[in-house]
Protein backbone atom coordinates (compact mmCIF):
# COMPACT_ATOMS: atom_id res chain seq x y z
CA UNK A 1 0.00 0.00 0.00
CA UNK A 2 2.76 2.39 1.04
CA UNK A 3 4.75 1.52 -2.06
CA UNK A 4 1.74 2.13 -4.22
CA UNK A 5 1.21 5.52 -2.65
CA UNK A 6 4.83 6.36 -3.25
CA UNK A 7 4.49 5.32 -6.86
CA UNK A 8 1.33 7.34 -7.37
CA UNK A 9 2.57 10.51 -5.66
CA UNK A 10 4.48 12.01 -8.62
CA UNK A 11 1.50 11.25 -10.86
CA UNK A 12 -0.85 13.02 -8.44
CA UNK A 13 1.38 16.08 -8.30
CA UNK A 14 1.57 16.10 -12.08
CA UNK A 15 -2.23 15.84 -12.30
CA UNK A 16 -2.76 18.66 -9.82
CA UNK A 17 -0.41 20.94 -11.74
CA UNK A 18 -1.92 20.09 -15.11
CA UNK A 19 -5.48 20.53 -13.82
CA UNK A 20 -4.55 23.96 -12.47
CA UNK A 21 -2.97 24.82 -15.82
CA UNK A 22 -6.05 23.69 -17.72
CA UNK A 23 -8.49 25.59 -15.55
CA UNK A 24 -6.55 28.87 -15.37
CA UNK A 25 -6.97 30.37 -18.84
CA UNK A 26 -10.55 29.16 -19.20
CA UNK A 27 -11.71 30.16 -15.73
CA UNK A 28 -13.37 33.37 -16.90
CA UNK A 29 -13.50 32.72 -20.60
CA UNK A 30 -16.00 29.88 -20.55
CA UNK A 31 -18.42 32.00 -18.56
CA UNK A 32 -18.37 34.98 -20.88
CA UNK A 33 -18.20 34.00 -24.55
CA UNK A 34 -21.67 33.18 -25.86
CA UNK A 35 -21.67 29.80 -27.60
CA UNK A 36 -22.81 29.62 -31.23
CA UNK A 37 -25.71 27.33 -30.34
CA UNK A 38 -27.14 29.77 -27.78
CA UNK A 39 -26.68 32.70 -30.17
CA UNK A 40 -28.34 30.73 -32.98
CA UNK A 41 -31.43 29.85 -30.93
CA UNK A 42 -31.76 33.43 -29.75
CA UNK A 43 -31.37 34.93 -33.24
CA UNK A 44 -33.79 32.45 -34.82
CA UNK A 45 -36.27 33.01 -31.99
CA UNK A 46 -36.22 36.75 -32.64
CA UNK A 47 -36.62 36.28 -36.41
CA UNK A 48 -39.53 33.87 -35.90
CA UNK A 49 -41.25 36.22 -33.44
CA UNK A 50 -40.95 39.14 -35.88
CA UNK A 51 -42.28 36.95 -38.68
CA UNK A 52 -45.36 35.89 -36.68
CA UNK A 53 -45.98 39.49 -35.63
CA UNK A 54 -45.91 40.54 -39.29
CA UNK A 55 -48.44 37.80 -40.05
CA UNK A 56 -50.64 38.94 -37.15
CA UNK A 57 -50.50 42.52 -38.42
CA UNK A 58 -51.99 41.60 -41.82
CA UNK A 59 -55.45 42.98 -42.54
CA UNK A 60 -57.00 39.64 -43.53
CA UNK A 61 -55.82 38.05 -40.32
CA UNK A 62 -56.90 41.02 -38.19
CA UNK A 63 -60.38 40.85 -39.73
CA UNK A 64 -60.83 37.18 -38.80
CA UNK A 65 -59.48 37.76 -35.30
CA UNK A 66 -61.84 40.68 -34.70
CA UNK A 67 -64.78 38.63 -36.02
CA UNK A 68 -63.88 35.94 -33.48
CA UNK A 69 -63.80 38.52 -30.71
CA UNK A 70 -60.07 38.20 -30.14
CA UNK A 71 -58.09 41.24 -29.04
CA UNK A 72 -54.93 41.44 -31.15
CA UNK A 73 -52.96 43.24 -28.43
CA UNK A 74 -53.72 40.39 -26.06
CA UNK A 75 -52.73 37.90 -28.79
CA UNK A 76 -49.34 39.62 -29.05
CA UNK A 77 -48.83 39.47 -25.30
CA UNK A 78 -49.61 35.75 -25.34
CA UNK A 79 -47.10 35.29 -28.13
CA UNK A 80 -44.45 36.77 -25.82
CA UNK A 81 -45.08 33.95 -23.36
CA UNK A 82 -43.79 31.34 -25.82
CA UNK A 83 -40.20 30.13 -25.71
CA UNK A 84 -37.81 30.59 -28.66
CA UNK A 85 -38.09 26.91 -29.55
CA UNK A 86 -41.90 27.11 -29.64
CA UNK A 87 -41.91 30.26 -31.75
CA UNK A 88 -39.37 28.81 -34.20
CA UNK A 89 -41.63 25.79 -34.60
CA UNK A 90 -44.69 28.00 -35.21
CA UNK A 91 -42.93 30.03 -37.87
CA UNK A 92 -41.77 26.83 -39.56
CA UNK A 93 -45.34 25.46 -39.58
CA UNK A 94 -46.66 28.69 -41.08
CA UNK A 95 -43.95 28.76 -43.77
CA UNK A 96 -44.74 25.16 -44.75
CA UNK A 97 -48.37 26.01 -45.50
CA UNK A 98 -49.22 26.31 -49.21
CA UNK A 99 -49.56 30.07 -49.08
CA UNK A 100 -46.87 30.64 -46.49
CA UNK A 101 -43.22 31.51 -46.99
CA UNK A 102 -42.32 33.53 -50.05
CA UNK A 103 -45.80 33.86 -51.53
CA UNK A 104 -47.13 35.21 -48.26
CA UNK A 105 -46.57 38.82 -49.22
CA UNK A 106 -49.29 38.62 -51.85
CA UNK A 107 -51.77 35.92 -50.94
CA UNK A 108 -53.07 34.64 -47.63
CA UNK A 109 -54.61 31.23 -48.26
CA UNK A 110 -57.71 29.98 -46.45
CA UNK A 111 -55.68 27.20 -44.83
CA UNK A 112 -53.23 29.74 -43.46
CA UNK A 113 -55.98 31.84 -41.90
CA UNK A 114 -57.57 28.79 -40.27
CA UNK A 115 -54.19 27.72 -38.96
CA UNK A 116 -53.36 31.16 -37.62
CA UNK A 117 -56.70 31.64 -35.95
CA UNK A 118 -56.44 28.22 -34.30
CA UNK A 119 -52.90 29.05 -33.28
CA UNK A 120 -53.90 32.32 -31.71
CA UNK A 121 -57.02 30.91 -30.05
CA UNK A 122 -54.78 28.13 -28.72
CA UNK A 123 -52.38 30.65 -27.27
CA UNK A 124 -55.33 32.50 -25.75
CA UNK A 125 -56.71 29.31 -24.23
CA UNK A 126 -59.97 29.08 -26.23
CA UNK A 127 -58.89 25.98 -28.15
CA UNK A 128 -56.43 23.14 -27.61
CA UNK A 129 -55.28 22.00 -31.04
CA UNK A 130 -51.50 22.29 -30.94
CA UNK A 131 -49.65 20.33 -28.26
CA UNK A 132 -46.66 22.70 -28.48
CA UNK A 133 -48.57 25.74 -27.21
CA UNK A 134 -47.75 26.41 -23.58
CA UNK A 135 -50.87 26.41 -21.42
CA UNK A 136 -51.25 28.62 -18.36
CA UNK A 137 -53.58 27.06 -15.83
Amino acid at each position, binding site marked *: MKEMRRAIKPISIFLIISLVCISMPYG*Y*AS*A*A*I*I*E*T*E*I*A*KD*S*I*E*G*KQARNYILSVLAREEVQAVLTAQGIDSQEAKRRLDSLT*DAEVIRFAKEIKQLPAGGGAFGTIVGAALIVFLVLLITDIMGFTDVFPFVKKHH
Partner: protein
Amino acid sequence: MRLHGLVDIEVPNQFEIDDVPFFPQEAYQCGPATLSMALVWSGIQVEPETVAPEVFTPSIKGSLQSAITGAARRHGRIAYPITTIDSLVKELASGHPVIILQNLGLSWFPIWHYSLAIGYDLEDGFVILHSGRTSRKHLSLITFERTWDRSDHWGLLVLPPSQLPVTAEESEYISAVIGLEKTHHWSEALKGYQTALNRWSNSLRIYIGIGNCYYKLGDLKAAEAILRDANILFPNEGVVLNNLAQVLLEQGKYNEAHESVRKAIQLGGPLSHLYQKTFEEILFLKDTH
Protein backbone atom coordinates in the same frame (compact mmCIF):
# COMPACT_ATOMS: atom_id res chain seq x y z
CA MET B 1 -39.83 10.44 -67.09
CA ARG B 2 -40.60 11.12 -63.43
CA LEU B 3 -41.26 7.79 -61.78
CA HIS B 4 -44.70 7.56 -60.14
CA GLY B 5 -44.39 11.17 -59.05
CA LEU B 6 -41.91 10.13 -56.35
CA VAL B 7 -39.19 12.35 -57.67
CA ASP B 8 -40.19 15.81 -58.78
CA ILE B 9 -36.95 17.63 -59.56
CA GLU B 10 -34.65 18.24 -62.50
CA VAL B 11 -31.75 15.78 -62.38
CA PRO B 12 -30.18 13.38 -64.87
CA ASN B 13 -32.29 10.23 -65.37
CA GLN B 14 -29.60 7.99 -64.04
CA PHE B 15 -26.42 8.51 -62.09
CA GLU B 16 -23.98 6.44 -60.09
CA ILE B 17 -21.05 7.65 -57.98
CA ASP B 18 -18.23 5.34 -59.03
CA ASP B 19 -15.51 5.94 -56.45
CA VAL B 20 -17.31 4.78 -53.29
CA PRO B 21 -15.47 1.98 -51.45
CA PHE B 22 -17.40 -1.10 -50.35
CA PHE B 23 -17.02 -2.96 -47.03
CA PRO B 24 -19.15 -6.13 -46.76
CA GLN B 25 -20.79 -6.22 -43.33
CA GLU B 26 -20.39 -8.80 -40.57
CA ALA B 27 -23.50 -10.01 -38.66
CA TYR B 28 -25.54 -7.05 -37.32
CA GLN B 29 -22.71 -4.68 -38.28
CA CYS B 30 -24.45 -2.72 -41.03
CA GLY B 31 -24.02 0.53 -39.05
CA PRO B 32 -20.22 0.43 -38.73
CA ALA B 33 -19.77 -0.90 -42.30
CA THR B 34 -21.99 1.80 -43.81
CA LEU B 35 -20.46 4.64 -41.79
CA SER B 36 -16.95 3.43 -42.71
CA MET B 37 -17.76 3.51 -46.43
CA ALA B 38 -19.08 7.08 -46.11
CA LEU B 39 -16.08 8.19 -44.03
CA VAL B 40 -13.52 6.66 -46.39
CA TRP B 41 -15.29 8.24 -49.38
CA SER B 42 -15.05 11.61 -47.56
CA GLY B 43 -11.31 11.18 -47.08
CA ILE B 44 -11.03 9.68 -43.58
CA GLN B 45 -9.16 6.36 -43.54
CA VAL B 46 -11.04 3.99 -41.21
CA GLU B 47 -12.00 0.31 -41.03
CA PRO B 48 -15.39 -1.02 -39.89
CA GLU B 49 -13.62 -2.70 -36.94
CA THR B 50 -12.24 0.61 -35.66
CA VAL B 51 -15.54 2.46 -36.16
CA ALA B 52 -17.65 -0.28 -34.51
CA PRO B 53 -16.88 0.66 -30.86
CA GLU B 54 -17.98 4.25 -31.61
CA VAL B 55 -21.43 3.29 -32.91
CA PHE B 56 -22.38 -0.28 -32.07
CA THR B 57 -24.55 -1.03 -29.03
CA PRO B 58 -24.17 -4.76 -28.26
CA SER B 59 -27.36 -5.00 -26.16
CA ILE B 60 -29.55 -3.98 -29.08
CA LYS B 61 -27.30 -5.66 -31.69
CA GLY B 62 -27.32 -2.48 -33.67
CA SER B 63 -26.28 1.15 -34.01
CA LEU B 64 -28.47 4.08 -33.00
CA GLN B 65 -28.90 6.93 -35.48
CA SER B 66 -27.57 9.44 -32.94
CA ALA B 67 -24.41 7.33 -32.59
CA ILE B 68 -23.87 7.34 -36.37
CA THR B 69 -24.28 11.13 -36.47
CA GLY B 70 -22.02 11.58 -33.44
CA ALA B 71 -19.30 9.31 -34.83
CA ALA B 72 -19.23 11.19 -38.16
CA ARG B 73 -18.66 14.41 -36.16
CA ARG B 74 -16.00 12.81 -34.01
CA HIS B 75 -14.09 12.17 -37.24
CA GLY B 76 -14.37 15.88 -38.11
CA ARG B 77 -17.05 15.45 -40.74
CA ILE B 78 -20.24 17.42 -41.36
CA ALA B 79 -23.25 15.18 -40.59
CA TYR B 80 -26.19 16.64 -42.48
CA PRO B 81 -29.69 15.07 -42.40
CA ILE B 82 -31.45 14.08 -45.64
CA THR B 83 -35.17 13.44 -45.17
CA THR B 84 -36.88 13.56 -48.58
CA ILE B 85 -36.54 11.47 -51.72
CA ASP B 86 -36.01 14.65 -53.75
CA SER B 87 -33.06 15.80 -51.67
CA LEU B 88 -31.65 12.26 -51.63
CA VAL B 89 -31.67 12.09 -55.44
CA LYS B 90 -30.28 15.64 -55.75
CA GLU B 91 -27.35 14.83 -53.45
CA LEU B 92 -26.64 11.59 -55.33
CA ALA B 93 -26.78 13.46 -58.65
CA SER B 94 -24.14 15.85 -57.35
CA GLY B 95 -21.85 13.03 -56.29
CA HIS B 96 -22.60 12.78 -52.56
CA PRO B 97 -23.38 9.27 -51.22
CA VAL B 98 -26.05 9.19 -48.51
CA ILE B 99 -26.37 6.85 -45.50
CA ILE B 100 -29.96 5.66 -45.26
CA LEU B 101 -31.85 3.70 -42.61
CA GLN B 102 -34.59 1.32 -43.74
CA ASN B 103 -37.02 -0.77 -41.80
CA LEU B 104 -37.02 -3.95 -43.90
CA GLY B 105 -39.70 -5.48 -41.66
CA LEU B 106 -42.97 -3.96 -40.56
CA SER B 107 -43.77 -1.27 -38.04
CA TRP B 108 -44.72 -3.92 -35.42
CA PHE B 109 -41.82 -6.20 -36.36
CA PRO B 110 -38.99 -3.90 -37.34
CA ILE B 111 -35.81 -5.09 -39.03
CA TRP B 112 -33.51 -2.07 -39.12
CA HIS B 113 -30.87 -1.82 -41.79
CA TYR B 114 -28.31 0.83 -42.74
CA SER B 115 -26.90 1.04 -46.23
CA LEU B 116 -25.16 3.59 -48.42
CA ALA B 117 -27.04 5.02 -51.39
CA ILE B 118 -24.61 5.66 -54.26
CA GLY B 119 -26.85 6.11 -57.29
CA TYR B 120 -30.27 5.84 -58.91
CA ASP B 121 -32.05 5.17 -62.18
CA LEU B 122 -35.34 7.02 -62.63
CA GLU B 123 -35.96 5.45 -66.04
CA ASP B 124 -36.09 1.89 -64.69
CA GLY B 125 -37.03 2.98 -61.19
CA PHE B 126 -34.34 1.81 -58.77
CA VAL B 127 -31.76 3.07 -56.31
CA ILE B 128 -28.22 1.69 -56.12
CA LEU B 129 -27.02 0.72 -52.65
CA HIS B 130 -23.87 -0.63 -51.01
CA SER B 131 -25.92 -2.87 -48.73
CA GLY B 132 -25.04 -5.79 -46.46
CA ARG B 133 -22.76 -8.14 -48.38
CA THR B 134 -23.80 -6.81 -51.79
CA SER B 135 -22.11 -3.92 -53.53
CA ARG B 136 -24.08 -1.85 -56.09
CA LYS B 137 -27.34 -3.57 -55.23
CA HIS B 138 -30.33 -2.44 -57.32
CA LEU B 139 -33.47 -1.91 -55.24
CA SER B 140 -36.81 -0.88 -56.74
CA LEU B 141 -37.63 2.74 -55.93
CA ILE B 142 -41.10 1.68 -54.73
CA THR B 143 -39.73 -0.84 -52.21
CA PHE B 144 -37.04 1.61 -51.19
CA GLU B 145 -39.59 4.37 -50.56
CA ARG B 146 -41.77 2.03 -48.44
CA THR B 147 -38.91 0.73 -46.31
CA TRP B 148 -37.42 4.21 -45.95
CA ASP B 149 -40.82 5.60 -44.97
CA ARG B 150 -40.89 3.12 -42.06
CA SER B 151 -37.72 4.71 -40.65
CA ASP B 152 -39.29 8.20 -40.97
CA HIS B 153 -36.96 8.91 -43.91
CA TRP B 154 -33.75 8.87 -41.90
CA GLY B 155 -30.81 9.76 -44.12
CA LEU B 156 -27.39 11.28 -43.47
CA LEU B 157 -24.75 12.98 -45.58
CA VAL B 158 -21.15 12.71 -44.38
CA LEU B 159 -19.12 15.49 -45.96
CA PRO B 160 -15.77 17.20 -45.50
CA PRO B 161 -16.39 20.72 -44.13
CA SER B 162 -15.11 22.24 -47.38
CA GLN B 163 -18.15 20.91 -49.28
CA LEU B 164 -21.70 22.15 -48.94
CA PRO B 165 -24.64 19.77 -49.48
CA VAL B 166 -26.46 20.92 -52.64
CA THR B 167 -29.73 20.80 -50.70
CA ALA B 168 -28.27 22.63 -47.69
CA GLU B 169 -30.61 24.87 -45.74
CA GLU B 170 -28.94 27.59 -43.68
CA SER B 171 -30.23 26.85 -40.19
CA GLU B 172 -29.84 23.08 -40.56
CA TYR B 173 -26.32 23.44 -41.94
CA ILE B 174 -25.25 25.73 -39.10
CA SER B 175 -26.57 23.12 -36.65
CA ALA B 176 -24.40 20.51 -38.40
CA VAL B 177 -21.34 22.75 -37.96
CA ILE B 178 -22.26 23.35 -34.31
CA GLY B 179 -22.02 19.53 -34.02
CA LEU B 180 -18.33 19.86 -34.95
CA GLU B 181 -17.87 22.56 -32.29
CA LYS B 182 -19.43 20.20 -29.73
CA THR B 183 -16.83 17.56 -30.54
CA HIS B 184 -14.11 20.25 -30.27
CA HIS B 185 -13.14 20.05 -33.95
CA TRP B 186 -12.56 23.82 -34.05
CA SER B 187 -10.52 23.88 -37.28
CA GLU B 188 -13.08 21.75 -39.12
CA ALA B 189 -15.96 23.81 -37.70
CA LEU B 190 -14.17 26.99 -38.82
CA LYS B 191 -13.84 25.53 -42.32
CA GLY B 192 -17.53 24.57 -42.26
CA TYR B 193 -18.60 28.11 -41.33
CA GLN B 194 -16.31 29.61 -43.98
CA THR B 195 -17.85 27.29 -46.59
CA ALA B 196 -21.31 28.35 -45.42
CA LEU B 197 -20.37 32.04 -45.57
CA ASN B 198 -19.70 31.66 -49.31
CA ARG B 199 -23.35 30.69 -49.76
CA TRP B 200 -25.01 32.88 -47.08
CA SER B 201 -22.75 35.91 -46.99
CA ASN B 202 -25.03 37.94 -44.71
CA SER B 203 -25.53 35.44 -41.93
CA LEU B 204 -25.07 36.79 -38.42
CA ARG B 205 -25.08 33.23 -37.04
CA ILE B 206 -22.16 32.23 -39.27
CA TYR B 207 -20.13 35.30 -38.26
CA ILE B 208 -20.66 34.43 -34.59
CA GLY B 209 -19.64 30.82 -35.29
CA ILE B 210 -16.41 31.89 -37.03
CA GLY B 211 -15.59 34.22 -34.14
CA ASN B 212 -16.13 31.43 -31.64
CA CYS B 213 -13.93 28.97 -33.57
CA TYR B 214 -11.03 31.44 -33.77
CA TYR B 215 -11.48 32.14 -30.08
CA LYS B 216 -11.37 28.44 -29.16
CA LEU B 217 -8.33 28.00 -31.39
CA GLY B 218 -6.66 30.77 -29.37
CA ASP B 219 -6.43 33.18 -32.32
CA LEU B 220 -7.77 36.27 -30.54
CA LYS B 221 -6.67 38.65 -33.32
CA ALA B 222 -8.65 36.77 -35.98
CA ALA B 223 -11.65 36.47 -33.62
CA GLU B 224 -11.52 40.23 -33.01
CA ALA B 225 -11.32 40.96 -36.75
CA ILE B 226 -14.36 38.84 -37.70
CA LEU B 227 -16.40 40.16 -34.78
CA ARG B 228 -15.57 43.75 -35.78
CA ASP B 229 -16.76 42.93 -39.33
CA ALA B 230 -19.93 41.46 -37.83
CA ASN B 231 -20.42 44.56 -35.69
CA ILE B 232 -20.28 46.76 -38.81
CA LEU B 233 -22.85 44.58 -40.61
CA PHE B 234 -25.05 44.11 -37.53
CA PRO B 235 -24.47 47.10 -35.23
CA ASN B 236 -27.38 46.25 -32.93
CA GLU B 237 -26.49 42.67 -32.01
CA GLY B 238 -25.70 42.12 -28.36
CA VAL B 239 -24.06 38.72 -28.87
CA VAL B 240 -21.49 40.20 -31.25
CA LEU B 241 -20.72 43.06 -28.82
CA ASN B 242 -20.50 40.67 -25.87
CA ASN B 243 -18.16 38.24 -27.61
CA LEU B 244 -16.07 41.10 -28.98
CA ALA B 245 -15.79 42.46 -25.43
CA GLN B 246 -14.51 39.12 -24.18
CA VAL B 247 -11.95 38.86 -26.97
CA LEU B 248 -10.76 42.43 -26.31
CA LEU B 249 -10.59 41.76 -22.58
CA GLU B 250 -8.30 38.78 -23.04
CA GLN B 251 -5.95 40.98 -25.07
CA GLY B 252 -5.82 43.45 -22.20
CA LYS B 253 -7.85 46.08 -24.06
CA TYR B 254 -9.97 46.86 -21.01
CA ASN B 255 -11.45 50.19 -22.08
CA GLU B 256 -12.60 48.96 -25.48
CA ALA B 257 -13.98 45.78 -23.90
CA HIS B 258 -15.87 47.85 -21.35
CA GLU B 259 -17.33 50.08 -24.05
CA SER B 260 -18.40 47.12 -26.19
CA VAL B 261 -20.22 45.25 -23.42
CA ARG B 262 -21.84 48.47 -22.23
CA LYS B 263 -23.47 48.79 -25.67
CA ALA B 264 -24.65 45.17 -25.47
CA ILE B 265 -26.31 45.81 -22.12
CA GLN B 266 -28.00 48.94 -23.48
CA LEU B 267 -29.52 46.84 -26.28
CA GLY B 268 -30.94 44.38 -23.74
CA GLY B 269 -32.78 41.28 -24.93
CA PRO B 270 -33.14 37.73 -23.64
CA LEU B 271 -29.37 37.21 -23.26
CA SER B 272 -28.68 40.39 -21.29
CA HIS B 273 -27.96 38.42 -18.09
CA LEU B 274 -24.93 37.01 -19.94
CA TYR B 275 -23.78 40.48 -21.03
CA GLN B 276 -24.08 41.55 -17.40
CA LYS B 277 -21.76 38.73 -16.38
CA THR B 278 -19.16 39.82 -18.94
CA PHE B 279 -19.54 43.40 -17.70
CA GLU B 280 -18.85 42.44 -14.09
CA GLU B 281 -15.87 40.36 -15.10
CA ILE B 282 -14.41 43.25 -17.10
CA LEU B 283 -14.87 45.63 -14.18
CA PHE B 284 -13.18 43.15 -11.85
CA LEU B 285 -10.18 42.58 -14.11
CA LYS B 286 -9.89 46.26 -14.97
CA ASP B 287 -9.60 47.10 -11.27
CA THR B 288 -7.04 44.42 -10.51
CA HIS B 289 -4.74 45.54 -13.34
